[in-house]
């Protein structure tokens, strides 16, 4: 191996994603239906849903409780299987993958930020962030290490690396989860009500971090939320009701998003 002199990593490393700009979708949902139960007890959580998640953009999925928004995101992220239809992540059709293939896909190509219980309580902050690499049986490479260090510094977690999750505030825990999700530079980050358990200040901080990851680093993000303020941080808001996509708007204020939600409630 001949070591070639490398330039120092830029203070704000970018994700290598030539498709930034939204032309090529990072994930494509095609005619997905998800049903629970059989016969008379059958409930359709999703009915023939098709959706593109553009690369490098921050998409919010909104809808009332029971609209199917979480189910849609679970299926898109390879956490759940569709009854019919297809989901493509990049060029990979994930609908045909078995459990282990889906697990590896989640480990390497998707990042997760849940509402709560994001962190493994027995591991410290540093080990939680590196978990996806360690599960792969490896350590972060020098390049990945530099990226993680930058994330840790940017998210203000430098002094917390040896703390256990129960020693952190809710906002700090969510920032650790975001650091872990960003660490592998995944194709897509899936955030499920990431601010649902936070006070409004901590919630805004978390949303700012997600927004920055998308605008400055080209990170593709899909966020499920029922909070119009949270959705106002996204480039685009998709509305679900009764298992169908019923509306879609570009970046809007919280007031406008609330208006759309109220209209949907009135129709329902």
């Amino acid at each position, binding site marked *: 191996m001949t070591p070639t002199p490398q330039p120092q990593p830029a203070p704000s490393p970018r994700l290598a994603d030539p498709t930034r700009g939204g032309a090529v979708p990072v994930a494509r949902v095609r005619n997905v239906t998800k049903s629970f139960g059989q016969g008379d007890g059958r409930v359709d959580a999703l009915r023939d849903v098709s959706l593109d998640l553009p690369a490098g953009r921050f998409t919010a999925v909104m809808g009332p409780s029971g609209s199917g928004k979480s189910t849609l995101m679970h299926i898109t992220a390879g956490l759940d299987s569709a009854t019919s239809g297809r989901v493509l992540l990049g060029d990979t059709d994930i609908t045909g993958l078995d459990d282990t293939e889906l697990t590896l896909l*989640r480990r*390497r190509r998707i990042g997760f930020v849940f509402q709560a219980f994001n962190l*493994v*309580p027995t591991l410290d902050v540093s080990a939680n962030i590196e*978990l*996806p690499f360690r*599960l792969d049986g490896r350590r972060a490479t020098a390049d990945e290490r530099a990226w993680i260090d930058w994330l840790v510094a940017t998210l203000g977690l430098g002094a917390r690396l040896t703390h*256990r999750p*129960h020693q952190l505030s809710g906002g700090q825990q969510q920032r650790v989860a975001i650091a872990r999700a960003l660490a592998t530079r995944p194709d897509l980050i899936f955030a499920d009500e990431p601010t649902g358990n936070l006070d409004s200040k901590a919630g805004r901080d978390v949303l700012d971090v997600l927004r920055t990851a998308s605008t400055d680093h080209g990170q593709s993000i899909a966020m499920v939320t029922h909070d119009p303020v949270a959705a106002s941080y996204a480039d685009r808001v998709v509305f679900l009701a009764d298992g169908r996509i019923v509306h879609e708007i570009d970046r809007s204020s919280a007031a406008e998003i609330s208006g759309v939600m109220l209209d949907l409630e009135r129709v329902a």
Partner: protein
Amino acid sequence: MSARDQLLEHRPSILVAALGTTFGVGLLGVTHVLEQIVASDAAVAASGTVSTMLGFVAAVFVGLALYVGAIVTANTFATVVAGRTPTIALMRLLGSSARDQRRAVAREGLVVGVAGAVLGTLVGLALVVVAVRVLVGRGQLPDLAYSYFSVGGLVPAVAVVLTTVAAAWVGSRRVLQVTPLQATDAAQDAPVAGRSRRIVRTVVAALLVVGGGLLLVVGVVVGLVDAMGVLIAFFGGVLSFTGVVVGAHALMPAVLSAVGRTFGTSQVARLAAENAVRQPERSTRATIGIVIGVTLVTTLSVALETLRSFIYSIEQDPSYAAELDQVFTTTLLIVAALVGFSAVIAAVGMVNDMSLSVLQRRRELGLLRAIGSTAGQVRRMILLEATQMALTAIVVGVVLGVVYGWAGAQALLGSANQGLLIAPTLPVPLLLGLAVTAAVLAGVAALVPARRATSVTPVEALAAR
């Protein structure tokens, strides 16, 4: 929570109470029958002495089984209470006092104890009757008009009810710490418990271990000139081992961590190692019963084996050696069977502990699956965790047993060996048997939880409360 769910949660405790009662009632039943045989035999004049001795031996082993059973039950109740925290918090929110809630748990302990005692009494008596009838039929026992039932024979059943209630009471201590607010806050997992700092207990344990250890050394030294040293060593052994059991909360987590480190640095091994000590008190109670059983059997086994080697080295007559073998083997088998019952109860406790702790970690396992642990990695993690506990318990027991067994043999034989030291003889079959036991125990403890943990989708697991 429905009565059926409660029954499911308490099934292991009922099993433990029933096992303890079966053993106690059975052993006293056997003693009772033996007394009748001895009394019918005019040749044995000192029947009173024999019956006192039998009663004493039975009391020691039944006491041991009850003690181990109580540890297991206290642990199960503590775990059940931890799992019920949201329900208890809701009851507190609705106006129930903490003491009422704890009393309710203790009442469940009474029901569990009575159910187990009744079941165990029936099984224990039936076993004795069947065994005696079979032996009489084969002509191995005199055909007397045996009475199987004695009021004294029911003492173990009563003792089991009492110890189960006491164990439930101790195990339900946590109820007092549940606040009504926890009903509204579903957000956070209980923090990983720190090592328990029970200073008085630790100091007492340390004094017992050091004092007992010194006595053990004195016994060995005295034994170099006089075989009576074995008595001093015996008391030293009893004292120091009591210290080990009292101080188990300090010893077991430390050894568990050390054993966990030998499993390597892979993420799965690290998670397993952390899991085994995340609730130090729980892991301690889940393993100490097995340590007690293994220590006792190993002590006796090493002592007898060393004694046998020594006698072989000076006694050349083969027929005498064969006779000696027979006596030693019979003694060892009887004691192993008697101690084994306690060890089975302890093993039930460990299996149950693994099962409940995995059940209560559903959400965490869901998270691990979501962010990229394969089902195989989760299963391996649970198996490693169980292996760590089984291995730790058995290694600690073997180490203590070899020390005690050797010290006993040395104190007894030192003077006969011209005041020289004797190397301990390790009973290979016992060690092999214990290795197999560790593997089987770990496998059984991990099997059901591992399958259950990976049979649900990550989404279902994450939604669990």
